[in-house]
């Protein structure tokens, strides 16, 4: 009888801790909210997609209609209202994969991000500015002013190329030589293994 009571006492004391264990507490959620690292720029997403980076996974949180009208290549549709359905859990909770949430702007993506983060999912990102920013930056890049630094021109060239890659097809004159000039190959003679020794 006494033993049972002691066990029950232990159980009661430990119980409140185990409830909601896999949820991120509000204090930690606030820290995550204040950190701006959840935003990923369209340029970074584009360059990772062009490189066929397997560790990036796009999730479109818009409605099914908007998704079927247009989405980024390879994106999966999880409408915001179904975000917490069990069938999507394995897609949002992956190891070593950055899940990027996409909407037209970042409002829906941000809301989805808060809910995912509360559920304890890691590596969830928000496409900064959403598809609107994507189209402004990648699909319709603005030519930088002549006075801008070289980086701006590099970025512009990258965006032009990316725009072609994603089907934008700019009519601008781009250097599109498909032929790769064959580089002179320097024959390197193999050094013979060090001979002898003592």
């Amino acid at each position, binding site marked *: 009888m006494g033993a049972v009571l002691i066990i029950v006492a232990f159980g009661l*004391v430990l119980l409140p801790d185990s409830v909601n264990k896999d949820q991120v507490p509000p204090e930690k959620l606030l820290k995550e909210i204040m950190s701006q690292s959840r935003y990923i720029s369209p340029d970074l997403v584009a360059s990772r997609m062009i490189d066929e980076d397997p560790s990036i996974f796009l999730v479109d949180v818009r409605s099914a209609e908007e998704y079927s009208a*247009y989405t980024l290549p390879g994106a999966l*549709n999880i409408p915001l209202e179904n975000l917490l359905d069990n069938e999507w859990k394995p897609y949002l909770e992956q190891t070593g994969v950055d899940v990027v949430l996409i909407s037209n702007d970042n409002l829906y993506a941000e809301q989805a991000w808060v809910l995912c983060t509360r559920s304890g999912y890691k590596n969830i990102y928000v496409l900064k500015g959403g598809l609107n920013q994507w189209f402004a930056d990648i699909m319709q890049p603005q030519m930088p002013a002549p006075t801008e630094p070289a980086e701006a021109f590099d970025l512009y060239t990258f965006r032009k190329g990316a725009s072609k890659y994603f089907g934008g097809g700019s009519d601008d004159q781009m250097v599109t030589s498909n032929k790769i000039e064959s580089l002179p190959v320097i024959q390197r003679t193999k050094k013979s293994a060090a001979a002898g020794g003592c």
Partner: protein
Amino acid sequence: MIELTKTRRLTVATIIFVLIILVGLITFRRPDHKYTITSQEMLTIVNAPDNFIQLNDINNSALVLVDLRQAYDFNKGTIGDAINIPVSDILDKEVINMLIDWQKESKTVVIFSDNLQSATAPWMLWRQMGYDNIKLLSGGFCKYISSRSGIEGATGDNMTEKPALDYGEFIKNASGGQEVVTPNSTIQISPIKRTKKSAAAGGC
């Protein structure tokens, strides 16, 4: 004699029981902040249309305006008689006490930041902690400034999440009538591997 030992044992057990409970209650730190609604309930709230207050309606004196921007920006100017609660302070004790008071007085609290997006996450955090009298200012501070100076017309419309252009149409035109990128059907995932804990292996 046997009766006596039995009673004594029982007494000892009861004392230990009470002690453990007491120690547990004293040492157990209750979390300062708790969610009062589940994620699923929050999702329903997020998809409801009545989370926003339009710019035209903020002159109502029953509203409490809360500016979530940094103190530096707040001091340069704010909307009406808004009070400043920077995002970093939204879980502070005084702030929570204010929220509780406002909720008791059933005042509607309208929060804003530079734009709607940056006020959304703090708003969701508060809502999940049960302060259901909080609403978002549609558009945010930037929109307020531009509507006041008549740059974009003083509609205060909630323009967020509207596509800037018809994406599908744009791609179709740009790529000379080619097929629009159709959603990929074979999506690969790499699920989290849950490792089974192995039984403790032998020592020496």
